[in-house]
């Protein structure tokens, strides 16, 4: 039994469609939550130029979430606004990495670097997806993500090699964040089959490239120390206590105006 989406590309089976819907939601959730955390710096970043830069990056990440959720909608998923604003913490499938409070500037930049690098490598691989709609999205988003990586890599290096204070804060951020980062590479249910069909990138290969790239930048170039990562990770359905208050704030306008039609 094969369903034929009304868009060009590989024809997806029902199980493939369900798995891809879940993957697109997972990807979008990470983008939405991280964008919100970055948005919390608006008006508070170290200097005006960085305030603008980080808000710009946050907008890009939200734009990527919009791409994923729009594709999900064509595959039978809900309206993107419904997905973003009407699900609670139990239904969000973001990693714990992105939901942790924004911390100081070093924490924000280290997290963004770990995330941007993973996203850029995944998107780069996804441009070769056999599923044309996904390949198109990836080609669009990867250009922005490569630029994000440059920006956050520059900051991490300068903070790590800056003053003793900035080095201490950067190392502390890495020590706290590193154990959570591997969760970005957890496959969703049914992902293996999509990878075998060439629809999704090989997550294991992306993870290996990521580890190599971030190790070179953080350790070799910036002189930081990688802590041990736990061998097992909680699932994406397990959240910290920080997600609920984040969603409460992020969704407050939508929930106060459930009938709003224009955003």
């Amino acid at each position: 039994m094969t369903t034929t989406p009304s868009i060009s590309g590989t024809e997806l089976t029902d199980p493939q469609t369900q798995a891809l819907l879940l993957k697109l939601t997972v990807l979008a959730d990470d983008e939405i939550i991280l964008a919100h955390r970055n948005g919390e710096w608006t008006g508070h970043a170290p200097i005006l130029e960085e305030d603008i830069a980080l808000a710009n990056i946050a907008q890009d990440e939200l734009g990527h979430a919009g791409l994923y959720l729009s594709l999900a909608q064509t595959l039978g998923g809900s309206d993107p606004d419904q997905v973003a604003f009407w699900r609670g913490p139990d239904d969000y499938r973001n990693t714990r990495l992105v939901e942790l409070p924004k911390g100081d500037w070093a924490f924000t930049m280290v997290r963004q670097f770990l995330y941007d690098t993973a996203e850029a490598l995944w998107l780069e691989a996804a441009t070769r997806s056999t599923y044309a709609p996904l390949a198109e999205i990836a080609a669009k988003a990867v250009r922005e993500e490569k630029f994000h990586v440059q920006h956050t890599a520059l900051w991490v290096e300068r903070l790590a090699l800056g003053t003793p204070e900035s080095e201490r804060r950067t190392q502390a951020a890495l020590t706290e964040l590193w154990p959570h980062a591997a969760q970005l590479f957890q496959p969703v249910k049914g992902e293996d089959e999509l990878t075998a069909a060439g629809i999704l990138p090989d997550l294991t290969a992306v993870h290996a490239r990521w580890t190599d790239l971030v190790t070179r930048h953080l350790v070799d170039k910036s002189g930081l120390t990688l802590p041990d990562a736990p061998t097992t990770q909680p699932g994406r359905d397990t959240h910290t206590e920080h997600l609920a208050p984040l969603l409460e704030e992020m969704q407050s306008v939508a929930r106060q105006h459930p009938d709003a039609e224009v955003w």
Partner: protein
Amino acid sequence: MTQPQSSSPDTQWPRWEVFKQDAPGRPHQAVGSVHAGDPPHALLTARNVFVRRPAAVSLWCVREDDILTATPEELTTNPALLDSPGEPGTYHVGVKRTNKRSMTFVDLSGIVTADGPGDALRQAQSLHPDVLAWMVFPETAVVRTDEDPGTVASWFAPAKDKTYKQQQHYGVIGRHVGELKRAGLMPGRAASEEGA
């Protein structure tokens, strides 16, 4: 922003003038400035501040300290500007021709070979006698984006895809304030107008 501290030195990062090229073959234009700690930081920040949506193909940054500027009035009162010392070499010349724009850009008009910034300014004055201001800086002071297709794509192509929506594009949640006023539903001013 840093906390104001009366007795501490100025901790502001250096200021860099940003030059943006909108399309191949167009002149680079001075569009504003950023504060940044070093050249790569200046370029990255300039991209985020000045290329968020409008199209661009190239960015240059030049430290404020490396730029010599003058208006005709300034040269009249301080002709010694034409003797400003510095290294001989290739200098970029920028001219500001008009104030009749919402943003008064300086266009880079070309290069000259000069003994130093003062000599470059003298040549700029001679080449472009009737302008509002001149700007010169050495080629060696320019930090520029790479011209390879990969860099151009990741730095500038996404900006072209982003549409800028005017404020009126966005709807109003609930009823517009004017509508409420006309209906006499706004407390205060609407009520007093009614009473008058």
